[in-house]
């Protein structure tokens, strides 16, 4: 080690902290009480920001916010709301502005994502059986919800002349699902589960939303980007995991904390010259 190594490494940490610093910034995370929503919130907190977890009442976002505050020794806030309802989105906005007087970051993370890989009842998911009710419900959360939140929170950012929207798309926004992954031995073809069509449609739509908003609010100082993550290990059946791993150059699914770097990069000033971009984080699945 060089003589200068100690002061140098302290300076190094300072440099990184300021580039990726979110101190004083308020981030709204939809689907915030879910597995990945909580992970997004953790990294926002680690960078000094405040997370507002928005989720449906049954997901208990208030309780999750209390847990997060304890775990990260940070301030966080949970609000139960249905983001597909404009009135409820406005109420969330009012509550946040009353409490913090600012909104700096929106992470559009909420979407329906039924676990077809663990399902033995997949008949409903097949294209020929797919109901209009499920189609409408999935689009309402994934697209209408993202549109309403972007409009309300993004407008607030545009008014202040600075802000970031980060949309969570998926590797399935850029490639089709490989339905062989979801097959169950012994089931007839007509009952084999598939990844629902709405998942591809919603996630691809998210990329269109990203580009539209990026150009629309570019002059207002609001940057809008997307990430397209692959699947994370979350107790899926081994056969599914084995099959999926073979589709990925890195030979593995993601760990649940491996999207935090991208979240912080794109939510902070470290990405100040990026807007309208889609960052694919898939272990290489779409590169071969």
């Amino acid at each position, binding site marked *: 080690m060089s003589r200068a190594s100690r002061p140098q490494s302290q*300076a190094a940490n300072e440099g990184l902290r300021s580039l990726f610093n979110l101190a004083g910034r308020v981030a709204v995370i939809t689907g915030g009480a879910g597995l990945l929503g909580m992970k997004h919130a953790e990294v926002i907190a*680690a960078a000094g920001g405040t997370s507002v977890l928005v989720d449906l009442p049954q997901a208990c976002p208030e309780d999750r916010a209390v847990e997060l505050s304890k775990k990260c020794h940070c301030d966080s806030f949970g609000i139960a709301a249905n983001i597909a309802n404009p009135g409820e989105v406005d109420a969330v906005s009012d509550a946040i502005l009353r409490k913090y007087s600012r909104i700096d970051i929106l992470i559009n993370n909420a979407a329906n994502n039924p676990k077809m890989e663990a399902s033995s009842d997949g008949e409903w998911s097949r294209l020929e059986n797919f109901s209009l009710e499920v189609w409408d419900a999935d689009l309402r959360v994934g697209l209408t919800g993202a549109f309403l939140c972007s409009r309300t929170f993004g407008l607030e950012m545009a008014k202040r002349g600075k802000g970031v929207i980060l949309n969570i798309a998926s590797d399935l926004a850029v490639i089709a699902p490989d339905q062989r992954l979801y097959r169950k031995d012994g089931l007839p073809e007509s009952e084999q589960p598939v990844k629902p069509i709405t998942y591809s449609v919603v996630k691809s739509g998210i990329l269109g939303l990203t580009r539209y908003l990026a150009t629309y609010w570019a002059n207002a100082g609001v940057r809008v980007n997307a990430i397209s993550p692959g699947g994370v290990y979350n107790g899926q059946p081994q056969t599914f995991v084995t099959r999926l791993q073979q589709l990925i150059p890195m030979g593995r699914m993601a760990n649940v904390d491996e999207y935090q770097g991208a979240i912080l990069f794109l939510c902070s000033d470290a990405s100040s010259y990026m807007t309208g971009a889609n960052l694919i984080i898939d272990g290489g699945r779409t*590169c071969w």
Partner: protein
Amino acid sequence: MTLSAGSLFDVKKKTVVLTGASGYLGKTFAETFLENGARVIVLGRSEKLDSHLAQWKLTFGPDLVDGYRFDMGDAETLTNTMDQIVAKENRIDVLVNNAHELGPLTGFNTQSGSLENCTIEQWTRNIAGGVLWPFITTQKLGPVMKRQNSGSIINISTMYAVVAPSPDLYEGTEFGNPAGYSASKAAMLSFTRYVASYWGKYGVRANAILPGPFSNIDYSTTNSVSKDSPFLSRLRSRTCLKRLGSPHELAGALLFLASEASSYVTGQALIVDGGWTTT
């Protein structure tokens, strides 16, 4: 994994090999790594490298920076230098392929570089920067990363790998962007995906950064632009953000790809272009 913003993007004690370190972006790349505590081996051709190197050794300590000054166009010297680096270093964590000849020899900013006029020599020099040099460095340093079961290769491409330069931007100016540049930097993306796929299971990641307009307005070189040039206002107005990028705005992308923050990112093209390619 720790959640501290500092540690997530940490490159402290990583060994980085950076080509084109004396250039407009390369200098900032070197300083980004050095300021964050990495050990950086800088490669460059210009005499500026010597003075930068002396300054960096003074600022960051002689152990943290090493340099080799030579012309990458000499493939034999490049190959030998890579062998020397492999023999000397305990590990190689990050390779940044940044060098490219940006001047009349590759057909930049000269009528002799236009599609009608450009020579095979100019074309070939572009291809060398885009894929030959990265191929040589990757072939030599990649196996070290493979043995370590970790490593990050970062190829500096351009947005012109995915969209074409518009002739209108250059009309009536002394500037010009040669076809060989677009072709070689697009080939660089294919090479990036090949490497990502080939060594993916060994923990070696390969990604590209695609900068948008980061015109060199600070230095007087074969590719610098004066601050009041009307060419710059054309570039600015073509972006969504209505401004040029400044080199430090690539630091975040560089640290993201070099560090564990991007541990599941490979085979990708990260576009940092102020929204140029969004519309």
